[in-house]
């Protein structure tokens, strides 16, 4: 366990996943690739972090999941934002803005 790093990463990852899914339902690989695109390759989400995050968020009621068909007619598990997830995204976006602004100001202060 590396609590500090995980917490920071977890918060960021959650926010990115919420953001990704706000555009529509998606399966695991799709989410991973979309985050890569959105962050222009800065974040490469590995399955070892992605799946725990998805399941944790599902458990918290932010996501719902169901089995479906991929574009190439393959079975895949799709995730979708719930109403609570939507609210969570809004709240976290605000919070993120506040924090990043504060930190940026703090870093520039000297």
């Amino acid at each position, binding site marked *: 366990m590396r609590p500090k790093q995980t917490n920071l990463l977890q918060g960021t990852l959650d926010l990115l996943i919420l953001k990704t899914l706000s555009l529509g339902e998606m*399966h*695991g*690989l799709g989410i991973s690739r979309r985050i890569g695109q959105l962050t222009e390759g800065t974040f490469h989400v*590995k*399955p*070892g972090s992605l*799946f*725990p*995050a998805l*399941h*944790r*968020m*599902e*458990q*918290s*009621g932010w996501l719902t999941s169901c089995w479906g068909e*991929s574009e*190439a007619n*393959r*079975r*895949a*598990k799709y995730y979708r934002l*719930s*109403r*609570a997830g*939507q*609210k*969570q995204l809004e709240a976290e976006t605000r919070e993120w803005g506040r924090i990043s602004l504060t930190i940026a100001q703090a870093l520039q202060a000297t």
Partner: protein
Amino acid sequence: MPLLRYFSSCWRSLFQKSRLDEDLDEELQAFVELLVEEKIRQGASPAEARRSALIELGGVEQVKERVRDARLGAAMESILQDLRYAVRVLAKSPGFTSAAVLTLALGIGANTAIFSVVNAVLLRPLPYAEADRLVAPMGEKHSPAAHTVVSHPDFLDWRDQTQMLENVAAYTRSSMLLRLDDAEPELIYGANVSADLFPLLRIRPALGRAFTRDEDQPTSEPVILISHGVWQRRFNSDPNIIGRQLKRGGSGAGAIIVGVLPEGFRFPVQESRTDYLRPLAPALGEWAQRRGAYSLRVLARLKQGVTAQQAESEMRAIGQRLEQQYPDEGFRLGSRFVSLYEAVVGDVRASLLVLLGAVGLVLLIACANVANLLLARAAARHRELAIRAALGASRWRVARQLLTESLLLSLAGGGLGLLLSLWGLDLLVADSAFNLPRLKDVSPDTNVLAFTFGVSVLTGIIFGLAPALLAVRVDLYEALKEGGRGSTAGAARSRVRGLLVVSEVALSLVLLVGAGLLVKSFARLRGVNPGFDAQNVLTTGLSLSKVKYPEAEQRRELFAQLVERLRAVPGVESAAVVYPVPFSGTTTSNTFLIHGRPAPAPAEKPAANYRAISPDYFSVLRVGLMSGRAFTEQDRPTSPRVVIVNETLARRFFRGQDPLGQRISIERASGQSAVQDMSEIVGVVSDVRHAGLDEEAGAEVYVPFTQAPEGYMDVVVRTTAANPAGMSASLRDVIRTADREQYVPAIQTMTELIAESVAARRINALLTSLFAGVALLLASIGIFGVMAYTVAQRRHEIGVRMALGAQAGDVLRLVLGQGLRLVLLGVAVGLAASLALTRVLAGMLYGVTPTDPATFAVVALLLILVALAACYVPARRATKVDPLIALRYD
């Protein structure tokens, strides 16, 4: 339903690892396939694509493990979150919280206490190995009196002839004085048992050994096993106790201690304590040889694979054989076997289950009350919930939150209730009237804890469900629009609230009717005239040492002297001796023959209870002499034998004849005197209920104690003092003057003896009334709460009515009418339920039918009055509404 899904997902992540695993496996598999496809599209060869896809995934097991951790963490997190929030919300309204927790603690505590008793008495198996094969022979009717009694010779024949029983053992209860060198003598209780009891119950002594059949002969040297408790308490756990002589009080002969019983051993059919076991035959002495002396009870262990029916038919066959062999004895063994468990608890089961049912109803009422409180709160929290919903909390999340709050309340109530129950149990067990078999074993074991926990959770769900479900139905728009005064979700809520009032009234009515019936039958029973005047009479039992007074003449002399001395004590009006005294629990039944009539078959010989008395007995107890004379000093051992009979005997056996001057011979199995002697009936006295207030007097024969001297007599003394109990000390002194070494047990008043005989009924009536009282209180609080709330809600409307000219009386009628409608509906439902339910009380009632109309009517009326009183205060408040303020308000 989301709520269910929540619980089931928690359940899954905690316990159903495998199904979740399969799903996860599949998900990861699908992920790999998609990845492979992607890589192939980018130009990799299939084999290469798969290899790099697996590398990208990393260890499958590692990923799965992390997912599982994450899920569990999230589940725990969200439960903790709910809990934290619930604690905060409840702490913010301490009034509501403490009212709810106390109500629940009362309900759950009462249930835990009664369940602890049920657990100890009914649920725990008997503490003997393979107890399912232990049985007791019974007569026809099932009651404690139906225990078969046999004589020692018959028991030995049975034991030797049986093929179906592994062991048969006979026993009698006994008590003795334990005299250790310089300590005060102590009366200890035990049993005289045949040697077969040890293999039968599979008892292995903690120290030493059990006694053998050789030591269980009439002439054997006396031996004894003492209990672990006596060994610890009186002998300081002396490891060298074996072989020591135990001096018995009174007699000089001591018994050799051969063993110490295992810790916690208790003789199955002796409730209170087993301080010792000693061999049966030596204790019986010469009675051991008499085939006519039926005084032994029997226990048996069925052989492996033998059914009770098989053993029963064998028992009947052996009984018939003995009857043919010894036709004069009119003998029969039992007619059926019941399990030992049944024999021990059969008589108390019904009343315990009734009590458990009663506390269950109390808890339901408590639930209804708390649900009411929650509903009222939910209305007040309408806005808070609506805002949470607006902020994105899903409905089920809100419902879950409310349910968490109610579970927290019920668990807090359960914890407090557990403490209350421990306290209540101490009170119950300390009350000697609550004398149940096995009650001494009562303790909060895992069964009880699991029960309390289960009941708490169930309670929380029961009272929390309605408010939670109603909250789920909250319509956001409606809620915000309505603002603080909310009333349409209000409509559903007030329907539920009405339903709660109706069920509270109905439930309390059932309880009140049950309590009313038990109280009424108790009152009926206490009102029964026992046939004598128990006021100002003291009694105690005296057992004379056979060593000190070996001759009948000596014993007679001592008792006669004692009566003289007692009579001389200031404050004593009259004194007598009798054996056995009424309400002592002892009965002695003997058959008799009527002179000049043909001898009937052995089984049809007339029988009567038999009582030895001194001349003044009837005047001490104020039993009326109907004809003839009482005994006098002139009825001596050498004078012609005389008896006095009661009215029932006279009526039953001398119909249309004058019983005076008739002669009967009583067949007695006791003492050294001749078994049959002709006696003349010299008097007839009125009937006395000796065995209990609820038992009609049987045929009764009184003989002068001078003509049948026993070593044991009860003393009865009528005092002139208003406080007979205050005389005990001087009586004790007088007895000690007659014989300095004489042990005098507790001196009791006759009224105490009578009260003891109905103690079980008293405690049943008392507990049920207590529970009914709590129910009534809770119900009236509930009704009050609902009506007060309704009035507060309708203030606006009432204001309008008053502005339009309604008088205070109209408003009062309006509110009371609304309350009354609910109450009457509840009463109707409750009456119907009571009609169906009170049948279970039938066996516990005396002189009252289970559907006694008077009780039903009185209870219904009482409940309506109390309910109206509970409505009245809010109704009065409604009349005080100032139209101006009410209309200006919001």
